[in-house]
């Protein structure tokens, strides 16, 4: 079979992809390798080690893994991802998409508009809104609930940022699931209804098997995004006493505030590895799906893999 469909020839084909490859090399591959290198040194923001960093081998990694604060951060990040992405955004997004699937007209447009609004507003604006909402003294939530003086951000910092991120990110899942539900043929749902299937049985037997690929893609993307999310720093700054210090905050405070760039780079690399594990686990789940027709969707997950490297610059940004 002729693999050169465009008839370019090897030389010209290389010419076409070279500029893109150079850009990827300079802005993605090199910083990634640089982060790995920095993670092996005692490079600091200021002082002697800033001028002349020494290679310290795996010291940064052993220090991080031995650090209670790192392990707490990791655990908080897991809670954050499970709570706000997997349970919050995915479940709520699906519920909204499912409820609105047959609705047309103003109700649907208003709900979609509100959900989208929370997604497209700039992070700093949204963070300010939530501080205003949850404030101890003049907060809207306390006024609504009649609980003056309840310090939500101090008493429940993790819950606050989980609810915050659920609110912020549900739009993506809702839109993705709404598009996925469009692919379920009405005749399949009607066949199930004629057989007497309840709404839950229709979901189990008709809808979920058909949109499984979409569900996994969505899970992959929102898990990675949430794991690397820095926005809630604007609300709790990881406090109080580090009780909401998820991993991106931890890197930021140690690397930039604490000046330990080498250590920060090492933790960034660990985050990258965790992301990779996430991605590989999802990809494996997708591969084990038995239908050949889903090969196309497997390709979507190639893009999901791109999100791993896409997540890289944010991490490396903190190190470099």
């Amino acid at each position, binding site marked *: 079979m002729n693999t050169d469909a465009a008839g370019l020839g090897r030389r010209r084909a290389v010419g076409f992809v070279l500029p893109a490859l150079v850009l990827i090399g300079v802005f993605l591959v090199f910083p990634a390798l640089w982060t790995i290198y920095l993670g092996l040194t005692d490079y600091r923001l200021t002082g002697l080690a800033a001028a002349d960093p020494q290679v310290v081998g795996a010291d940064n990694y052993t220090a991080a893994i031995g650090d209670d604060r790192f392990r707490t951060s990791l655990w908080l990040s897991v809670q954050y991802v499970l709570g706000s992405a997997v349970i919050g955004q995915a479940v709520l997004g699906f519920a909204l998409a499912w409820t609105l699937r047959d609705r047309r007209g103003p109700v649907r447009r208003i709900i979609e508009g509100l959900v989208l609004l929370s997604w497209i507003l700039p992070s700093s604006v949204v963070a300010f809104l939530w501080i205003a909402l949850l404030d101890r003294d003049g907060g809207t939530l306390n006024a609504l609930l009649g609980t003056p003086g309840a310090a939500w951000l101090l008493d429940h910092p993790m819950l606050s940022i989980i609810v915050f991120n659920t609110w912020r990110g549900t739009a993506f899942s809702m839109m993705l699931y709404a598009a996925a539900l469009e692919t379920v043929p009405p005749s399949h749902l*009607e066949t199930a209804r*004629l057989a007497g299937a309840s709404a839950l049985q229709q979901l189990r037997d008709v809808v979920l098997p058909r949109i499984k690929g979409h569900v996994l893609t969505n899970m992959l993307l929102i898990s990675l995004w949430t794991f690397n999310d820095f926005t809630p720093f604007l609300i709790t700054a990881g406090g109080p006493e580090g009780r909401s210090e998820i991993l991106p905050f931890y890197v930021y405070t140690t690397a930039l505030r604490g000046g330990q760039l080498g250590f920060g780079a090492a933790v960034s690399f660990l985050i990258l590895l965790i992301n990779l594990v996430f991605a590989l686990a999802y990809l494996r789940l997708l591969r084990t799906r038995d*239908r050949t027709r889903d090969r196309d969707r497997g390709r979507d997950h190639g893009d999901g893999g791109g999100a791993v490297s896409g997540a890289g610059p944010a991490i490396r940004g903190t190190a470099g």
Partner: protein
Amino acid sequence: MTISLHGLTKVFPGGVRALDSLDLDIGEGEFFALLGPSGCGKTTLLRSIAGLETPTSGTVSIGGADVTALPPGRRDVAMVFQDYALFPHMDVTANIAYPLRIQKVPRARREARAAEVAGRLSLSELLGRRPGQLSGGQQQRVALARAIACHPKVFLFDEPLSNLDARLRLEARTFLKRLQDELGVTTVFVTHDQGEALALAHRIAVMDAGRITQVGTPAEIFRRPATTFVASFIGSTPMNLLPGEVAGGALHVAGAVLPAPPGLPDGEEIVYGVRPEYADLSAVPRDDAFPGTVAVLENLGTSTLVTLEGGGEDGDRLVQVVVPEGEDPPVGAAAWAVPRPDRALVYHGDRLVHPA
């Protein structure tokens, strides 16, 4: 089970009146066709029997019981959709047994039942396959098997043959008719193909604009179409429908003078209908024939469809005649189309007045 519809009306949001106060009775064990052009409401009618559409007013009864308010799952009907609606992630056994699984029939029993039905429809070799690995005809039989497996009171088929290619469609048609005959279950099917309706059904309802124009056996509908709409819709070649006038006790139609049925006063306008199969071609002038020039010849295999173009003031008037194999006239020749009087139809005010 009998099906009886009374005053059934369905108005969709936006004001489209898909069914207009429709009454229909379908007998026990009958194979019943709903026939009509797209948008005539036939599918809405089928879906109303299934319970997938809620009528705006009117009632649906199955086996004498009013089911208008019952959800689809409790009406004990099975439907085969145009796209078959097989679940791609389930194998053939699981697809056939799906309604039984919802009814909580134990696995062993429902799989035995699936295998039994599959055997009947020659699907035994395919029980472990997924729908994606089946041909169109096999998928259709799996969909039928799923409908049969749960012993419904009524079968509903939505364009059951339209996704098959032409040759397979004929085989599937014969198969379907025999199957329905053996099962003896009341079956309603929707089709836009008049040939399919004539071939399969015991009785046909021809629908137009949300109403039933005519109900009858295939022979009745073919021989005595109640209106010019039915006349033009039924038949594999379109019927010649020619406007004419009663004068001097005879019909003057497109250059021909034909005997008038009794009871039509002079001066009345009529429409004269004759199928191309029921007209003969004459090479010599005749008074009781439509004159014209041979314009197009279409070979139908065992016969040829000849299109005559009217001369003079009826320049755009076309008359079609079917001539036997090998008797094709030359194109451009003058010819006369002679209708057989015993097969001619006369409509007055869009009502059939002859044969009475």
